[in-house]
């Protein structure tokens, strides 16, 4: 039997309602916003209801709810769309490559200046670091709401407040937070980007970008939108201006079903369940002095636990666990900045990367305990 503790990559299994939504969508919907016939109309109505559900969950208007393929897609559109005219961009030292790479690419092309502010377990220090890194021409701050490596929650309301006072666009990466913690655009977030297939339980290939409408987003992809078709210029109105080409309509239907599943379970209940599993897992691992856990004590964290076992490379450990039916992700988790920050990447570090444990609402505490016992029984050679 396969037990998934890699839900930070994508939640698995999906709820029954999500699986049903996928099957139902294949039988019911045509292309959305592309005609007036019944099949297209049913697709259009469904897509609008997805915008209402997702926008409503995070405090965005339906027309400011842009459906995308994943969080990386959303972040690329946000970063490149906001920084289109140049200026200074500030990102945190815990960013995923979804943010860091488009930012670095724009900087390498000479289109923007880029700097990184250090994230500390002390949230006050983090906001001070942010303040110190601001410049007169800082146009946007990009910040994950919680690290996909350590789970550390960043002080997003304080960051939003700092940005709002200076007229800076705050772009938030909610990939590890949406569906796990209550988030509202009114927290000071101008643009919220997320995947739909993690904490919101939709299928892979779903994501969204939510805007509060305060900062125009220049499109990075042009094409058919089903609006103002006689013009060769890209429409300016959201959401279509950022939605060229056919949407992932089946995926969108599952995103709505997933979000409704999360609402029915209750975000607080889901977090409490996953947090309890993480705490038990950490408690079990802490019995082995060879194990290092990368979680600042007392810090607010989402249900993600990174760890290493002395003498066993993370990938070897994950391979060993996979052979025994446990799915955990090892390596850099596409977040080299975060690994550099916690000391698991760079010259002279004892080990590169970590093993990451991330439960879902379907995970069971007893499975986490059994997994921890398997980990504690591992020998440096990888054999028990």
């Amino acid at each position: 039997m396969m037990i998934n503790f890699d839900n930070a990559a994508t939640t698995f299994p999906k709820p029954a309602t999500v699986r049903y939504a996928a099957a139902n969508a294949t039988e019911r919907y045509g292309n959305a916003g592309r005609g007036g016939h019944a099949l297209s109309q049913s697709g259009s109505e469904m897509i609008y209801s997805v915008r209402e559900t997702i926008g409503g969950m995070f405090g965005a208007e339906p027309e400011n709810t842009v459906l995308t393929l994943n969080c990386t897609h959303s972040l690329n559109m946000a970063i490149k769309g906001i920084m289109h005219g140049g200026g200074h961009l500030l990102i945190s030292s815990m960013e995923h490559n979804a943010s860091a790479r488009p930012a670095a690419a724009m900087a390498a092309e000479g289109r923007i200046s880029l700097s990184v502010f250090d994230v500390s377990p002390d949230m006050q220090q983090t906001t001070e670091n942010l303040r110190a890194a601001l410049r007169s021409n800082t146009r946007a701050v990009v910040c994950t709401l919680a690290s996909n490596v350590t789970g550390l929650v960043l002080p997003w309301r304080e960051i939003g407040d700092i940005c709002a006072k200076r007229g800076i666009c705050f772009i938030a990466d909610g990939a590890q937070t949406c569906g796990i913690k209550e988030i509202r655009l009114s927290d000071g977030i101008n643009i919220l980007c997320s995947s739909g297939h993690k904490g919101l339980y939709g299928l892979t290939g779903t994501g969204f970008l939510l805007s509060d409408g305060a900062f125009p987003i220049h499109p990075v992809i042009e094409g058919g939108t089903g609006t103002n078709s006689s013009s060769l210029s890209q429409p300016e109105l959201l959401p279509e201006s950022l939605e060229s080409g056919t949407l992932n309509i089946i995926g969108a239907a599952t995103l709505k079903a997933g979000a409704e599943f999360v609402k029915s379970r209750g975000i607080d209940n889901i977090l409490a369940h996953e947090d309890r599993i993480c705490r038990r897992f950490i408690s079990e691992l802490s019995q082995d002095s060879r194990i290092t856990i990368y979680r600042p004590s007392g810090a607010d964290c989402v249900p993600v636990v990174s760890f290493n076992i002395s003498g066993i490379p993370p990938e070897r450990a994950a391979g060993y666990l996979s052979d025994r039916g446990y799915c955990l992700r090892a390596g850099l988790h596409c977040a080299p900045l975060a690994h550099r920050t916690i000391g698991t990447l760079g010259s002279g570090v004892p080990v590169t990367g970590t093993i990451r444990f991330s439960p879902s609402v379907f995970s069971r505490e007893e499975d986490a305990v059994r997994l921890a016992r398997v980990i504690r029984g591992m020998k440096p050679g990888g054999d028990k």
Partner: protein
Amino acid sequence: MMMNRCIAELPSYTLASKAERLLRARGIRCRLRRRENTAEGCGWDLEIASDRRSACRNAFAVLDRYDIPYRVGGDSP
């Protein structure tokens, strides 16, 4: 009874749907349909029909209040 009829032309299905919901939530009867003849292409019309003379005025006031971009259709009073 004389029916009052007017049309709000909207640039996208998204905004047309939002407008439709806003009006219906306020008891204003309306119907969404694909625009039949438009130079821009791909437009949506919100047809408002009511036996109350104030319905069209009220409908447009709601759209204005919510910053919904629209044009008053050609055969509206």
